[in-house]
């Protein structure tokens, strides 16, 4: 007998959207989240505002979580991990472990929404001193400060006068192995740059980039305002190294459009770290037996026109578990995966009863 439930793994934006979508169709939904709270990386990493428009992240994600919790057919399990998985498409058995112990549940299809993690800027060839200089931080560290509406230099607690963002840290790099563009960092950095300029009107803010990638509406929503209203300085040329100079940091690079080397003193250096598959994505892919691409993300075998299908029948994936994705992409593919998972369940139920 085919199971009547969909198992959603991961309670971030795409997992919440998928769980909500399945539940809205009146189908039993089991949402498993490893952490003790819903909302995923935006909550875990203290994001201040959502890109592109900067609405406060926490209430937005809380609202998404409530939409799921309020559905009578949704069964939300926090602090719970999937530890074993077997069975056949339409009749999978998943063993869930929580503080209360282990329990095996049946499900007809699965949605994997295990997301990404930020690239660790201390890794490999990066020479930006993230673990060496307190005033070298990453995008998510600045998000935390913006959430508290106080942007200061970690070294002395003073507001910075000169701030710069270094783009493509851990992305688009053959040596590191992350050859892909992480898609969101240009927009996130520019959004944060605007927020820093609003908070500290006397500050000078630079963004050092290889290519600015703010496609579609992000152009007029973020890029143009950053330049035209907030006077963020965009310089095409990536920083090669960060060096201590007095109590400031010296960043060295080439201003490529001007064709000259540059050295600038900064108070705060923000590394625009890219996305990598989360540990959850790597672990779940192996446990569920779905193929991963060479970067460790789950392989979207039906891409581009059926982008949430994995290599295993009945198992779908969405959001940043499939690769770098912004919030709009994540929730869209979450809804897509919900529809595919629900439809798969119905097809199987029909086949079994017939």
């Amino acid at each position, binding site marked *: 007998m085919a199971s009547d439930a969909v198992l959603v793994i991961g309670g971030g934006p795409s997992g919440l959207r998928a769980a909500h979508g399945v539940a809205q169709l009146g189908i039993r939904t089991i949402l498993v989240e490893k952490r003790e709270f819903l909302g995923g990386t935006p909550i875990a990493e203290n994001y201040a505002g959502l890109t592109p428009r900067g609405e406060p992240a926490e209430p937005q994600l809380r609202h998404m979580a409530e939409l799921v919790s309020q559905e009578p057919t949704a069964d939300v399990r926090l602090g719970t991990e999937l530890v074993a998985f077997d069975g056949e498409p339409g009749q999978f058995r998943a063993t869930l472990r929580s503080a209360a112990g282990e329990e095996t549940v049946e499900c007809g299809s699965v949605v994997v929404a295990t997301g990404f993690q930020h690239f660790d800027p201390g890794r490999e060839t990066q*020479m930006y001193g993230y673990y060496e200089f307190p005033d070298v931080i990453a995008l998510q560290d600045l998000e935390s400060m913006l959430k508290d509406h106080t942007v200061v230099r970690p070294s002395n607690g003073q507001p910075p006068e000169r701030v710069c963002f270094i783009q493509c840290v851990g992305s688009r790099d*053959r040596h590191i192995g992350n050859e892909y563009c992480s898609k969101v960092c240009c927009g996130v950095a520019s959004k944060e740059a605007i927020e820093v300029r609003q908070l500290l009107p006397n500050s000078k803010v630079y963004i050092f980039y*290889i290519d600015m990638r703010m496609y579609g509406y992000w152009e007029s929503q973020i890029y143009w305002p950053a330049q035209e209203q907030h006077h963020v300085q965009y310089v095409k040329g*990536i920083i090669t190294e960060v060096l201590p100079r007095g109590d400031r940091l010296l960043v060295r690079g080439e201003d490529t459009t001007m064709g000259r080397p540059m050295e600038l003193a900064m108070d705060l250096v923000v590394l625009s770290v890219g996305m990598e598959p989360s540990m959850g994505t790597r672990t779940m892919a192996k446990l569920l037996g779905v193929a991963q691409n060479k970067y460790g993300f789950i392989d979207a075998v039906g891409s581009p026109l059926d982008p949430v299908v994995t290599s295993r029948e009945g198992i779908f994936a969405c959001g940043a578990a499939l690769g770098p994705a912004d919030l709009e992409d994540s929730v869209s593919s979450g809804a897509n995966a919900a529809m595919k998972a629900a439809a798969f369940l119905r097809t199987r139920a029909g086949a079994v009863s017939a």
Partner: protein
Amino acid sequence: MTETLAHYKAPVVAGYPDVPLAEKQRLFDEIRGDIRFADYLYGCYECGICVAACPSARFYDFSPRRIAQAAAREDVELVYQQMQEDIWECSQCFSCLRCPRGNNPGGIITIMREVAVNNGMASAREALAGYSRIIYKIMSTGTQVSPDMLQPDAFPDWGPETGDVSTHLDLWRRALPSETLHTTSTGWAVDDKTLVELYLIWFHTGALDVIKDVDRGLHAILQEVMEERLEEEGIQI
């Protein structure tokens, strides 16, 4: 007709000998045909990380990024222009390997230099003129700069101790812990067997022939030194 790009300075303006376009194309094909080329150049973002890492770029109008770009664009005019001067401004330190695309601008320069030397280009002769003593030392002794070359008149910017050291050079050298460094006319002690093997390598690999196109006089001296030594060993080339 030659296509002239904005960044390209005509040979007559830049002050180097012009050659027909077909010759520039031939030199470029030789560079691109090198077995290493595909590993040294993928594609360029123009991010400038190589320039920022490059010591020469701080002191010259030199850019490893322009080297990579000219080669990637297959701009034979610009590549030919770079073979006149730019490629000799590189110190071959390979700091540019920091390239996120995995390019090796310094390696492209290595190939460009070899092509310049192998084709007896005037720029190669000119660039290597100052190095004839070094080339002589390396090829005849297997060691590079020897202690007795470090004379105060040749290196006035090395400070007052240079004179004192060169006066008592032998004493200073003998103060070094390693006995193989108790030398003044070579960088370190080179034994006879090594030297003979080295000369055979220069002959058989064609390294000695390369010198002929760049410095005929130096080539003649080296050939004589080597042949004489090999003859003593009873080896006929």
